[in-house]
């Protein structure tokens, strides 16, 4: 086991991710090891730490990029610490909480073997993904979070309409939890559904390193979904690796600022070789969450029939047959899949990728999981009921109350765009030349080198209020509790690099009522929705939850290169 704890470069700690000496002591103590002089022991993570990003061998390097590395220093967690002293991560465990229960979550370094490489990552309670929390609808649970990693962190309870002060957004609802400190969240869960939790500090690093977990809010309504043979959590992720292990992240600013950090190794529930075994005739309910930094997945199920039940904040109006699940970063979908024949079913990310060099699309299929169906036959209740598409009348009735507002003029017009400065001229030249056609979605990183070299110091992703011209954090819209607000979000195809954006609204729920003027036929409450390039999405937001909230792109690198705005919902007077 290589130990790196004697290396030193005399770097200035102040220039790195903020880490107080006292906090470092706590961290060191917490993981139960002794580093004689930890200040000297801080392993360098400067530019020598960069390794060339993996490239398609068929693509030549753009002239002028040979030997280039991102203009920020490289970060890998746990440098200076002997791997053997870091606890090995365990698979996620189910934690069932009742109203009023308290849970302790420790954020710490964990050790994982990924593709044969000993890898230091982050974990919630030492697990990957973090513990699966199961909470009844309308409950409040207390979560005490202790930060034992070297970066400040928070927990954002994604999609949950909880009290504003526990939303986990640093600088807006709380100060980030410094290394060695803790914070207590009270998580009130008014809606049934599939939610998740993750940091809101440098998500491009922390989430990518393993800080994510699901929270399932169990419905009070009986027979909320039809019967299934089993429920399976299905957390989709990818991570960028080369022959030496995971590629470092940008320390003071994100790399991959243009397209976000696409991984080249696919993971389900943190595993690179996920499998399932079931009997013939089983209906498997997949609780799907996309925790990737940037990748939108198109999940296919090997030809088995797929029924769509629910998304971010509850059920669709009607169940619907689908061929695949298109799931952007932070979105959730619940689907039932009937496996009615023995054999192997490959669950895959099935896309038409772009080869920018040849100007072509090409089919690409990446295995996410293999489901082995045995010859034994499962009880038939679930498979018989599977054939029926249910209408969720309570959802229809509730959404009907909002329908009179669908057709009205938008209250706010937002535009998504990007500004760059100081980028390598070779990248600018090539990308400018290649904007005659921009695909609606970026399914793969077709320019790995150019993307890697672009950092938060050169790229600013923008949400712009088209009426005032205000951008990003200049925006703080004011609403009153109970307002129904229609946003029109236009993803302009005319910018330096147009790209799809999964737009997330904190603390509220919304309906996607139309895309490019085509009305949605089957609605569902959402907290995150993809706006493809060139598209105009109309959403109706129910401003139900008072406080100061954020709206942002959930591509981690876009969020951390500017793409967020705020709005305040004033509490209705009693």
């Amino acid at each position, binding site marked *: 086991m290589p130990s790196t704890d004697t290396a030193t470069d005399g770097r200035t700690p102040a220039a790195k991710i903020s880490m107080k000496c006292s906090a470092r002591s706590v961290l060191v103590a917490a993981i139960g090891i002794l580093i004689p002089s930890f200040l000297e022991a801080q392993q360098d993570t400067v530019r020598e730490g960069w390794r060339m990003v993996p490239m398609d061998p068929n693509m030549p390097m753009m002239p002028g990029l040979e030997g280039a590395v991102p203009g920020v220093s490289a970060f890998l967690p746990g440098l200076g610490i002997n791997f053997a002293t870091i606890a090995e991560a365990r698979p996620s465990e189910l934690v069932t909480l009742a109203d009023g229960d308290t849970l302790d979550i420790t954020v710490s370094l964990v050790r994982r073997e990924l593709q044969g490489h000993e890898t230091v990552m982050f974990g919630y309670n030492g697990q990957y993904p973090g513990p699966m929390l199961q909470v009844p609808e309308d409950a409040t649970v207390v979560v005490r979070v202790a930060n034992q990693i070297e970066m400040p962190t928070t927990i954002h309870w994604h999609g949950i309409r909880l009290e504003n002060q526990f939303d986990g957004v640093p600088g807006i609802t709380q100060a980030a939890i410094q290394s060695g400190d803790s914070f207590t969240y009270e998580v009130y869960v008014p809606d049934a559904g599939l939610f998740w939790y993750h940091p809101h500090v440098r998500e491009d690093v922390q989430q990518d390193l393993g800080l994510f977990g699901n929270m399932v809010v169990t419905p009070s309504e009986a027979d909320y979904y039809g019967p299934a043979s089993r429920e399976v959590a299905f957390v989709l992720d990818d991570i960028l690796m080369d022959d030496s292990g995971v590629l470092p992240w940008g320390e003071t600013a994100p790399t991959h600022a243009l397209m976000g950090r696409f991984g080249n190794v696919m993971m389900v529930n943190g595993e690179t070789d996920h499998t399932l075994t079931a009997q013939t005739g089983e209906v498997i309910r997949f609780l799907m969450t996309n925790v990737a930094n940037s990748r939108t997945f198109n999940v296919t199920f090997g030809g088995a029939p797929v029924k769509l039940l629910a998304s971010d904040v509850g059920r669709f109006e009607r169940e619907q047959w689908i061929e695949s699940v298109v799931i952007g970063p932070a979105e959730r979908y619940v689907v039932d899949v009937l496996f009615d024949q023995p054999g192997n079913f490959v669950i895959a990310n099935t896309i038409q990728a772009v080869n920018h060099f040849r100007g*072509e699309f090409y089919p690409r299929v990446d295995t996410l999981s293999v489901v082995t169906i045995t010859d034994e036959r499962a009880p038939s209740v679930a498979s018989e009921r599977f054939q029926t598409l249910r209408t969720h009348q309570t959802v229809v009735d509730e959404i009907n109350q909002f329908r009179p507002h669908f057709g009205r003029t938008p209250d706010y017009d937002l535009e998504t765009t990007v500004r760059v400065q100081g980028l390598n001229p070779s990248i*600018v*030249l090539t990308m400018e030349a*290649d904007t005659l056609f921009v695909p609606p*979605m970026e399914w793969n990183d077709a320019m790995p080198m150019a993307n890697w070299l672009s950092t938060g110091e050169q790229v600013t992703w923008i949400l712009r209020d088209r009426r005032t011209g205000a951008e990003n954090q200049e925006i703080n819209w004011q609403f009153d509790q109970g307002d129904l607000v229609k946003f029109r979000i236009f993803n302009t*195809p005319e910018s*330096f690099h147009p790209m799809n954006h999964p737009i997330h609204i904190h603390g509220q729920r919304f309906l996607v009522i139309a*895309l*490019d003027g085509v009305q949605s036929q089957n609605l569902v409450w959402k907290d995150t929705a993809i706006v*493809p390039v060139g598209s105009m999405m109309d959403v109706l937001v129910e401003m139900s939850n008072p406080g100061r909230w954020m709206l942002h792109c959930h591509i981690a690198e876009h969020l951390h290169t500017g793409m967020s705005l705020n709005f305040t919902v004033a509490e209705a007077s009693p």
Partner: protein
Amino acid sequence: MLFILAAAALFSSAEIGGSNPTSNIGLTNCVAGGPAYYRFRLFTTRNVPGTGLATGSAEVSVIEGSPFSVSLSSDGSYVYDLQISLERMRIPAQGHLVAWVTTPEIDHIQRIGAFDADLTLVAPVAWNKFIVVITLEPINDPTATTWTGPIAFRGMSRSGLMHTMAGHGVFDQENCAIYGYGN
């Protein structure tokens, strides 16, 4: 190459994007989005009487009823509603104008349908890059698998504008043959 890079250097230090009001890539309220952005023209071949001055266009739009922001086929291709319209032409006295889509390699052909008097058609298409071909067919046969008559119009999906760098541009020095182009 040096000249190009120098020009790009000037470019790269400027703001690129919307905040420059004089830039033609700036943001205005008339930027084409959605179906308009992906619209493409159909060009007459002048091979069919009455189409010498004709123009045409095709638009792709989100499939109605998709629960997702993009609709995809099982191989990950975009599924669009393709809407074709023709203008400034006389309907031929004999035969039927029939629309087809085909891949750039013309290894797959799909019949969209025959035009009637309003000269518009809508049908789903599940290819990312395709050519629209409109031909004059002697009979209106919905089961036909390829055209037999003369081509009156053709046009390529906007994705056909995707830039190929092999053998030119910043890859001038590359031999395009090694990437499958030329001999």
